[in-house]
């Protein structure tokens, strides 16, 4: 039986100058890379496969298997691209990791690159996080100086360059093929698959794209073994992971725990929903994962558990909303996000999100027409599963799940403005002078 919380990735956070090479090494950093470079690349991949590590960016695809898809006989260079575009609403785990311990990622990248025979690796960091980018730039520079990057790393004969690349504001670049287009200096719009990135990704060459947390987990796996990793979590959802709790809780924050912990346990640790209030709804893994309610408090937060209740583990971004919150308002704001972030490439996402926002605004203003809930769901049905990438599916998921759990609240939108039913000031963390809202 493992402990409730199992800090591994976050173990060195908050320590003195934890972001520096010196502090990282003092905490045992860069031991795994030495070990990995003495293994064959295939052994490293097998180790990660055996560990059961699944992608921590949302989709949960087995990391080692992804690596093994890189064709050995392809004459083109192989590339590793770390997806540090963390932009899914509610998701806030990779940025603190990179801020506190960028070397964990650097070390993971060296090991992963070695495993897939890559000699140029990229970290694509969203542009809106200046200090994270500073820390990452410095960590890479330090790693070069210390001989962890560059040529003949640790005398192994293995060469690797890492390029730290700042994005420029586009949620869609978290989608791996859009990220590749963006990294090639293009508009970040998703690509057709096939060909899959493992075969023809960056510069049409074999490419592995992994989330920050996935790659950052690799040094600990190499150091402590697959069995150690598998001793945490559940049978199909192995290892420790970062859960991000935010919203109407007493103490929001990051919790590194074995996969399969429940929201009830996490709420207990964080002091529960804010005083005098109760849980209304929550997301298990960002706004693209269908919302859940208090009845799901005891469902294990792992890939299977969340799938079993019609949602997804996603990025394990637990956004908690209490009873003061208007579901209609929250849904509208999420859909406004998706409209803002739709890349425009495909019709259902571009036009559907445009339409949904206007329709949801009428619900919020209490001016929706009788029957508009069904129209809303029908528009969602015409978007969902029809779009080029999964962005529209995320936009649809928050609407359909909200209607599923709170249909009455939407129907109230035929007559009553949401801000009357749920005065918005009550949801805020500070005193808000309610303004009289005028809506067109």
């Amino acid at each position, binding site marked *: 039986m493992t402990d409730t919380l199992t800090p591994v990735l976050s173990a060195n956070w908050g320590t003195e100058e934890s972001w520096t090479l010196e502090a990282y090494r003092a905490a045992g950093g860069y031991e795994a890379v030495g070990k990995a470079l003495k293994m064959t690349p295939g052994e490293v991949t097998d180790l990660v496969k055996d560990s059961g590590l699944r992608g921590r960016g949302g989709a949960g695809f087995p990391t080692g298997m992804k690596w093994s898809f890189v064709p050995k006989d392809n004459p083109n260079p192989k590339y590793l691209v770390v997806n540090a575009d963390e932009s899914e609403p509610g998701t806030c785990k990779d940025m603190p990791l990179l801020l506190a311990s960028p070397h964990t990622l650097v070390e993971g990248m060296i090991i992963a690159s070695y495993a897939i025979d890559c000699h140029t690796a990229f970290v694509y960091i969203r542009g809106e996080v200046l200090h994270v980018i500073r820390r990452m730039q410095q960590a890479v520079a330090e790693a070069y100086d210390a001989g962890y990057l560059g040529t003949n790393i640790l005398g192994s004969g293995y060469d690797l360059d890492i390029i730290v690349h700042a994005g420029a504001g586009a949620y869609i670049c978290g989608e791996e093929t859009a990220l590749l287009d963006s990294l090639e200096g293009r508009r970040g719009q998703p690509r*057709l698959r096939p060909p899959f990135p493992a075969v023809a990704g960056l510069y049409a060459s074999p490419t592995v794209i992994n989330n920050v947390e996935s790659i950052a987990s690799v040094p600990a796996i190499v150091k402590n073994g697959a069995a150690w990793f598998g001793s945490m979590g559940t049978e199909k959802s192995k290892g420790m992971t970062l859960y991000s709790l935010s919203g109407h809780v007493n103490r929001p924050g990051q919790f590194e725990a074995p996969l399969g912990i429940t929201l009830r346990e996490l709420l207990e640790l964080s002091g529960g929903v804010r005083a005098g209030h109760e849980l209304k709804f929550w997301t298990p893994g960002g706004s693209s994962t269908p919302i859940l309610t208090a009845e799901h408090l005891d469902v294990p937060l792992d890939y299977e558990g969340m799938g079993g209740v019609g949602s997804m583990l996603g990025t394990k971004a637990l956004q908690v909303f209490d009873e003061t919150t208007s579901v209609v308002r929250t849904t509208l704001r999420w859909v406004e996000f998706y409209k803002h972030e*739709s890349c425009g*490439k495909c*019709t259902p996402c571009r*036009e559907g999100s445009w*339409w949904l926002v206007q329709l949801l605004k009428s619900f919020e203003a209490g001016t929706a027409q009788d029957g508009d809930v069904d129209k809303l769901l029908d528009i969602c049905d*015409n978007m969902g599963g029809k779009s080029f990438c999964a962005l529209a599916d995320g936009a649809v998921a928050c609407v359909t799940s909200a209607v599923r759990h709170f249909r009455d609240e939407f129907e109230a939108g035929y007559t009553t403005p949401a801000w009357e039913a749920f005065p918005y000031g009550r949801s805020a963390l500070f005193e808000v002078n309610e303004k009289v809202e005028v809506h067109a």
Partner: protein
Amino acid sequence: MSVVTKPADQVAPVDLITVTIDGTEVQVPKGTLAIRAAEMIGIAIPRFCDHPLLDPVGACRQCMVEVPDMGNGRGMPKPQASCTLECAPGMQIKTQLSSAVAEKAQKGMLEFLLINHPLDCPICDKGGECPLQNQALANGRGESRYEGRKRTFPKPVAISAEILLDRERCVLCARCTRFSEQISGDPFIALVERGALQQVGIYAENPYDSYFSGNVVQICPVGALTSVAYRFQSRPFDLVSTMVTCEHCAAGCSLRTDQRHFQVKRRLAGELPEVNEEWNCDKGRFAFVSGRGDDRLTRPLIREDGALRVASWPEAIDAAVAGLAAAGSRVGVLTGGRLTVEDAYGYSKFARAVLGTNSIDFRSRPTGADEAAFLATRVAGRTLADAVTYADLETVGHVVLVGFEPEEESPLVFLRLRKAVRKKNLTVTAIAAFTTNGNAKLNATLVPTVPGEEAAALRALDLAAGDVILVGERAALAPGALAAVAEVADATGARLAWVPRRAGDRGALEAGCLPGLLPGGRPLADTTARVDVAAAWDLANLPASEGLEATAMLAAAAAGELQALVVAGIEPSDFADAEAVRAGLEKVGFLVSLENRLSEVTERADVVFPVALIEEHAGTFLNWEHRHGRVNTVIKQSNAPMTDLRVLAALADGLGRPLGVRTPAQALAELTELGTWQAPAAASKKAAKKAAAKAAKPPKAVDGEVRVKLSTWRQLIDGGRGQDGEEALAATAKPSVARVSPALAAELGVAEGDQVAVSGGSGWYSLPVAITPGMVEGTVWVPTNSPGTPLGELGVVFGDEVALSLGGEE
């Protein structure tokens, strides 16, 4: 839009797989997209972004289908875009015809596309031929469920002088941007902004000036892209369409010409997979109004008391017959490049059988010493079956360009080369003075060559059997270049193709519009050939004496050695020395002109016959591949009902030696009956060698500060008279510049954009300098026929020496 990418007979049966669409089994080549497979059995899946000649994009999502079985027993959980879905063996596909899921997905998509689409169909050019309108009518809701606000933008936006964009109508299918990037390689339009604001845009300083820009109007599935030329001109359902072959160059594009009230309103690229696929160039698309000006000839003219006056047809024919009868066989015939094969044949027969002269030449341009021999032995008398074709360009590994600039001189050859470079790993080598923008788009390797030294450059290349040498008409001006082309081809097994510029050139050659060449590629010098033709023409014999080439004819006319000239469409400034041409036309005793419009020739003529515009008559153009392209009559109510052929027939009747043909059908039948000459292989080689020995042309000496060699060709959109009247097209022309290497610029002391004077034998003019890195030294490039300054006025040609100096007037 064509619906099938490849004829089934080009696909080996071994590659076929079986899929089931709406319950019907169909065998398709491996790799076929579901949307194409459905087309093969007559199932049309609605689509907007899909285009068989563009890379799949899957953007509009209109073509959703259900896939209950991927061929492995498992179904796909979500509906799929059939335009990006490759068929797999055993795959089950259900379209809107058999799947409620597919049908709802498609209806939903259409609704999404319409929520922001303006309700302006009644004033939209596309209305009546609009895929979105058709879809909405067939499958849309009667009433919209959308009660929101429609997205609006200022409109229209001119993305070039010729193309307008109404962003509100755009469905963002990206056909235009994909065309510009993938097909023509001119990504001056791009998707800009994102999400609901995504739109097609340009960068304001760099408009969409592509030679192929009109294609984006044609492939736009809505009325978002329109042309200045056609906007608000007609409704599609009021147009009468006729298929023709383009008269502007030797590419041989099929065009659809649409007329209303006996006026051509627009021309579209026709579908001819073997030639232009579904594309054409802007010149072919937009340049069709040159015959509408005040200078259009509608009635015959004869010279009386030194001035031309309107005459009746009988009067004009009598006058011409009298003048020609007086001249006897001391007549020359200049046919120019605008003629159909049938008309050209008429001139050839008229010259030889009626006038009794072999002085006939179609080349209204600078010519080279060994050119006629090269054309006789390497080009004339060939057929499509033994020629290099467009399709061949996609299968060969290496193409060498000699004296040929594809994008400027044969734009559809350029497009096909680019396709082969993109898709088939073709490599291109250009023997030229610098890497042009067009050749850069072909990733061509430049063999930097001073004009005139092409022969040596070609001989130095390492060619393999099966490679192709595309040789342009300019190569004739480089000493020995044509001989080198022939020799290298023979030595290596490379194939060669001559790509002339004008649409009528290849046909004129076949019709026998060269002094030494009878119809069907028969050498005049060969007795058997002469006997053959004489027999076919019902004559005892043909004139055997060697005729004069164009320049010699004009010189002879100026010297009084020729009594008369019969001239079709030529412009003095197209020749090496415009003044010499004018002198010939002025001094010749009797000048007969057959023309569409007033010209420098009609000004000097004694009798002028107005002849039909290309849109007013039928015939055939032979393209560079030797392929016959049909020209059908578009306008049947003609201002000038007489064709060249009928005028010639009338003159022949008047001269008492009937021509025997007076309709295009008769002319083509007679030429076809004659067939082509089967030359003994040895003879052609001998002729080529002989020609090579003759080549060598001393550069003219001119005064000036820096003497350099002249490189030049015609830009696609230039001062040519066929483009007259289409101002929007003219505004998209490339600027006229003088290109020099950085070192030469330094020597001259000029900076980018400074004026430099170019002096030739008979004049000078100035152009702004464009400093061109990588350009071969000792060379200047200028356009051959920039508006107002045709090179013929300078009296210099490609490969001549010219003088460059600083300054000159703007």
